[in-house]
């Protein structure tokens, strides 16, 4: 059996089937995307987080109406670093301090009586008021939560009414927290519902489609990029330079009007293949738009993404030119970090795909991924990990706090790439961490972003603090170990 039994799981053997070590000639797929064991100290979030936080949140010009008690909205108010460049006015001549999608938190604030009598009236009133308050919004998405899902509010009916009354593009994302096994369900829900609603909308209002003369033969959609810490600022120009036009990004810093035009492109380029491949697949089936999978992290993978996109349009020469130019820009700095990071061992715990996105990137920096864990990965993610990893890498599906600790203790990485909740745990164990969800100081994607990433990895490992942590009689440095 290639599965790994962790000490902390002795009393919950159900966990064994989630944990394995990679093998050289075999792709082991653990149990994944299944129900969480209650009380196992899971790190997973909820479906609502997937729909509202991950995919709905980055859309720049919509009102994100959270139909819920106040908390669900409060926690998703400007937390994830999905940045945007569309700003509301604060005062005459002065723009707001935060972009529109992070500046306002709009919620129906369900109260006890609404739970008893239903919240549809409240929702409708709230939407109409919010539309009057924020005339700059070009759309509205209603997100449901446990509360409004359980009481069974018909939010689609409300959305239809709102659109009839105001003409504003109105969508629903029904993804209550208690549906599915993780935030992955919310990604899926959003993809499917949005696709269907856009499809219906285009039938209803064909004027929203891209007009024939607006189309170019080089139109693509970048799917599954959420503009974390301005990743798009370094990624989009790469595609534009090779001569393709990005019509819409699903959904980082994107306007709703462009998202409605998604079915008008010639090719979909899918970056996050966990949270957004669904919509690419549906567009393939529904609109015969082919898609390619890519990774925009690291030199090798970004180059590959550009080459494959270019090959689709016959733009290979320009792609080679762009890649050469970009390489020249980062060469020197990359060499510096390669020397500093050579031989370091890292553990990665993220949502899912970034484990495999980053294995190659770490190799490019001379580092090895010794352990990887995914909150909500599916079988295809593990296949991708296996295809990229060295043999002997510890892999954990839907890890819990104990397993993460044991993973760190057993594999003793020099650096732990993880999210906000776990990074402080790593630090308490004396292991440097880098925030791998919202980044420390991004962007991390593309060629230029890779230097930022390498810098943050370097700062993690070489921070002076780690030399002093062992007590007043011991200083451990790189060269000296004084006892």
């Amino acid at each position, binding site marked *: 059996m290639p599965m790994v039994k962790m000490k902390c799981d002795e009393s919950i053997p159900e966990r064994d089937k989630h944990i394995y070590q990679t093998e050289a000639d075999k792709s082991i797929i653990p149990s994944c995307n299944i129900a969480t064991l209650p009380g196992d100290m*899971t790190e997973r979030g909820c479906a609502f987080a997937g729909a509202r936080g991950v995919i709905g949140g980055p859309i720049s010009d919509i009102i994100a109406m959270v139909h819920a008690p106040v908390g669900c909205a409060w926690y998703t108010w400007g937390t994830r670093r999905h940045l945007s460049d569309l*700003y*509301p006015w604060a005062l005459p001549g002065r723009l707001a301090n935060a972009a529109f999608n992070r500046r306002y938190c709009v919620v129906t604030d369900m109260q006890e009586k609404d739970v008893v009598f239903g919240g549809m009236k409240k929702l409708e009133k709230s939407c109409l008021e*919010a539309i009057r308050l924020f*005339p700059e919004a070009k759309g509205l998405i209603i997100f449901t939560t*446990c509360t409004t899902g359980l009481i069974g509010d018909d939010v689609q009916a409300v959305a239809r009414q709102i659109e009839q009354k105001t003409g504003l593009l109105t969508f629903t994302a029904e993804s*209550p927290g208690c549906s599915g096994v993780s935030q992955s369900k919310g990604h899926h829900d959003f993809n499917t519902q949005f696709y269907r609603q856009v499809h219906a909308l285009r039938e209803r209002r064909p004027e929203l489609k891209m007009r024939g003369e607006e189309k170019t033969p080089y139109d693509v959609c970048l799917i599954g990029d959420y503009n974390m810490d301005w990743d798009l600022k370094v990624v989009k120009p790469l595609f534009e330079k090779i001569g393709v036009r990005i019509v819409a990004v699903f959904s980082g810093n994107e306007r709703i009007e462009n998202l409605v035009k998604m079915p008008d492109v010639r090719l979909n380029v899918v970056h996050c293949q966990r949270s957004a491949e669904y919509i690419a697949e549906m567009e393939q089936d529904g609109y015969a738009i082919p898609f390619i999978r890519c990774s925009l992290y690291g030199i090798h993978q970004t180059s590959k993404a550009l080459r494959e996109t270019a090959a689709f349009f016959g733009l290979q020469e320009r792609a080679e030119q762009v890649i050469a130019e970009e390489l020249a820009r980062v060469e020197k700095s990359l060499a510096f970090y390669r020397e500093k990071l050579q031989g370091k061992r890292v553990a990665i715990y993220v949502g899912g795909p970034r484990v495999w996105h980053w294995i190659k990137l770490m190799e490019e920096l001379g580092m090895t991924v010794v352990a990887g864990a995914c909150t909500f990965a599916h079988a295809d993610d593990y296949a991708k990990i296996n295809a990229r990893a060295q043999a002997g890498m510890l892999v954990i599906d839907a890890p819990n706090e104990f397993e993460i*600790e044991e993973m760190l203790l057993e594999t003793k990485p020099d650096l732990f790439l993880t999210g906000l909740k776990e990074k402080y745990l790593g630090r*308490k164990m004396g292991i440097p961490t880098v925030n791998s969800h919202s980044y420390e100081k991004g962007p991390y994607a593309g060629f230029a972003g890779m230097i930022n990433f390498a810098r943050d990895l370097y700062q993690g490992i070489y921070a002076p603090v780690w030399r002093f942590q062992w007590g007043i009689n011991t200083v451990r440095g790189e060269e000296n170990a004084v006892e």
Partner: protein
Amino acid sequence: MRLNEIPVEGIPYDQLKIEKIPCAPAYAERAPELVSAGSRTVVVNPNRTCMPLGAMWAVLGVHGAIPFVQGAQGCATYVRYTFCRVFKEPATIATASFHEDAAVFGGRRNLVEGLRNLVVRYHPEVIGVVTTCSSEIIGDDMVSFIKLARAQLRQEIGPEQADRIEIVLVNTPSFAGSHLEGYDRASRAFVENMATVRDKPNGKVNIIPGLLYPGDIREIKHLLRHMGVEGIVLFDISDPLDAPLRPPQKFPYEPPGGTPAEQIRDMANSLATFALLPHAGQAGARYLERKYGVRAVVGPPPVGVQGTDQFLRTLSAVTGQPVPESLLDERGRLIDSLADTFHHTMMKKVAVMGDPDVVLGVTRFALEMGLEPVALAGGTASKTFTRDMSVILKEAGFTGDPLLLNGGDLFEFEEYLKKLPRLDLIIGNSKAVDIAKELQVPLVRTGFPVYDRFGYQKRAVVGYRGGEILLTEIVNSILGYQYPDDRTHQL
């Protein structure tokens, strides 16, 4: 075209050249008839969050305790996320992981299996079972579920070990109150379940701090120490949520400190219970008073001169211990600071936002500094906020007419501030940062949550020394924003 090389320092933010694109051609006023929260249904930028957060905060302050959230995973994860952002610490919280089956069949299996899985791996001494919107709507019969869970635990780990674990249920449906209510309910649930015997007086005082930061709780303990009073701080998050980095850590990670269970059990024997922030903690204090005659002292927040004076006077009256010279010196230092700085604070217009008790405490201190409040926004609607605030304003002889928001939301607050002829300063939590930056006034951060700066959770604002810290921050913010440097060479 030759492209710039990317230096080893990476691409600095300012070189990303992000062009801010306006949403609309020009500024337009927000629909005036919808600005006031009372005149609309929708809530924009709430100044409060959900009930379970307060209960989880409380449980994390108990030694060896772990919150178990009976609900969907997000209910635990979002709150952990918030705690990590605020405290920069790990926060250990378990969840029943509700999926569809729980929504259909109820959460019994999740609770029973969940408590089992938690207990056999983590060996907690105390479990705070925190309910959520979903479990409350489904109508989970938590009391009988917990009984069942305990019965099964007795079989698996033996009755002695199983019975030693305290399981405290806190009902926190988010649609029925804010995070303060959650903490308040936890305070009552914990004393009701654990402080069940009044046998021999312990001569101690109970302190229920409310949602105060580790730095504040350390300051309260400092005051008690100097008063020669032994205290029981219920929900003492000072060590669990401000833990030292001293590897090797125990495995699994167990945060240090927290209120030991035996101290909570002893709370009915105390002289009095001080609920420092009334909206979060008075339920526990009042329960002990009703049931065991332990005197309840509810508020006022021990912030600033008079707030701290009142706390120490009552503490002295309750315990018979005089206020020592050392604390009078601390008081004197705060008074000295006030005397050294009033030229910079008097007549300055201040807006305060946050939890109602924080706003009350801070406003009272602001008035002591000669600041003039123009807008005061308590995020959680309260029966006492408006009344208490007018007492404070009257006591200070303040004749202005500040906007009082009892509940409401931050949208109303900011739209009001934008229309004011003058504003010098906002005191409040990180949720006010956009407002402050847009109005180009300093934001002095205090209260929950502060996540966009480092260290505020480690510093006190309560007590005389905390007052000095807050005063320093306020004065320096004003100096930094409003004074040309050549004037600050001599203050």
